[in-house]
């Protein structure tokens, strides 16, 4: 059980090849998606870690923005040698964290030449439109409202670099062009997962797309977003009220 308040990585028995700081670990399998999760709450780290692992991601979970930067080597000019081995495909971070907020972390990542192309997703328990806007304008890929559910992670997973295969009848509707992302009401991923969980998209290696490429290559969804309203009600059977965010155009015009 991950009880370390610092870096809560994979459990020893299932320890993958992700090392902390990438020092002693062998290179990650290029086909596998590696996610860096940042959250000061241990409970939330464990949950997000599980959600990501169920969707076949390798996960490194850290408890602060500083640790995230340290892990990425952004704060260390000499870390470039490690970069070949340190593939991070997605960074998912909580917004409200002591010390460095998720927003501040986002900014630092976007300022980094090595990592600015890595999609960053912000999570927050609070539905604050100005906050969401600010993050998206700063280049966040998406904004998830907590508590995060499997369907949210599956959605992320599906538009992540490795899986973007637009012509194969991908089960998920892909986000629209400049308008906000659409939720995918009819995709299998939005129904409650069966007891044996498996990723709903097949992995195959493909050259990673930058966020810009992902956005510009997306099909427009048949279900259009009505307006620029950020809040959408969840199409799922979940009885909880408005809990999702549409992605606003992240400053791309």
């Amino acid at each position, binding site marked *: 059980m991950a009880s370390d308040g610092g870096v809560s990585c994979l459990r020893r028995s299932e320890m993958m090849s992700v090392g902390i700081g990438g020092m002693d670990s062998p290179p990650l399998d290029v086909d596998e998606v590696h996610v860096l999760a940042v959250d000061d709450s241990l409970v939330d780290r*464990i*949950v997000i870690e599980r959600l990501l692992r169920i969707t076949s991601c390798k996960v490194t979970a850290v408890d602060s923005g500083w640790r995230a930067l340290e892990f990425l080597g952004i704060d260390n000019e000499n870390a470039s040698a490690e970069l070949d081995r340190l593939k991070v495909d997605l960074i998912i971070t909580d917004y409200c964290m002591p010390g460095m907020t998720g927003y501040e972390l986002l900014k630092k990542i976007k300022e980094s030449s090595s990592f600015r192309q890595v999609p960053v997703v912000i999570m927050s328990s609070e539905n604050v439109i100005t906050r969401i806007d600010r993050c998206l304008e700063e280049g966040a890929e998406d904004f998830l409202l907590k508590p995060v559910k499997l369907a949210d992670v599956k959605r992320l997973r599906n538009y992540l670099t490795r899986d973007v295969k637009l012509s194969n009848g991908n089960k998920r509707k892909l986000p629209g062009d400049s308008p906000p992302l659409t939720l995918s009401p009819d995709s299998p991923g939005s129904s409650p997962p069966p007891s044996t969980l498996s990723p709903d998209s097949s992995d195959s290696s493909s050259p990673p797309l930058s966020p810009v490429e992902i956005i510009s290559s997306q099909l427009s969804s048949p279900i259009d977003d009505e307006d620029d309203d950020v809040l959408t009600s969840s199409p799922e059977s979940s009885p909880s009220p408005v809990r999702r965010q549409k992605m606003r155009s992240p400053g791309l015009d």
Partner: protein
Amino acid sequence: MDAHVAQLQMQYRNYILSLYQQGFLDDQFTELKSLQDDGSPDFVAEVLSLFFDDCVKLVGNMARALDQTGTVDFCQVGANVHQLKGSSSSVGAKRVKGLCINFKELCEAKNYEGCVRCLQQVDIEYKTLKAKLQDMFNLEKQIVQAGGIVPQVDIN
């Protein structure tokens, strides 16, 4: 099927349903259960255990912050409430989360007596939930020991 197992399973179902009906748990708990499988059979128990550890820690922090003779740092109390609200939300601890929402408002209003009362309620509530979930886990154990499978409970 063994009558004993069937009886335990029914007991279990009814117990779980009552927890939802009485507002102890919400759909996020259902979500956590759905993340558990044969490969991670103790996932829910682990997460809940961490949550209750969190409760102890945060309630302790809040009690200390409210115990200051002199000026109470309501921001400090509020920060702890925020954390507790977050983790209770993440595990589906509906009543605890609800209390935290009230608590947050009381902090913002710098309502000292209100905060103290609310903290007491939070303390009672998480301990109650802990006991209830312990009963639930015990029932699961009994079912398994009797040779049965823990049923998936449809709460809708």
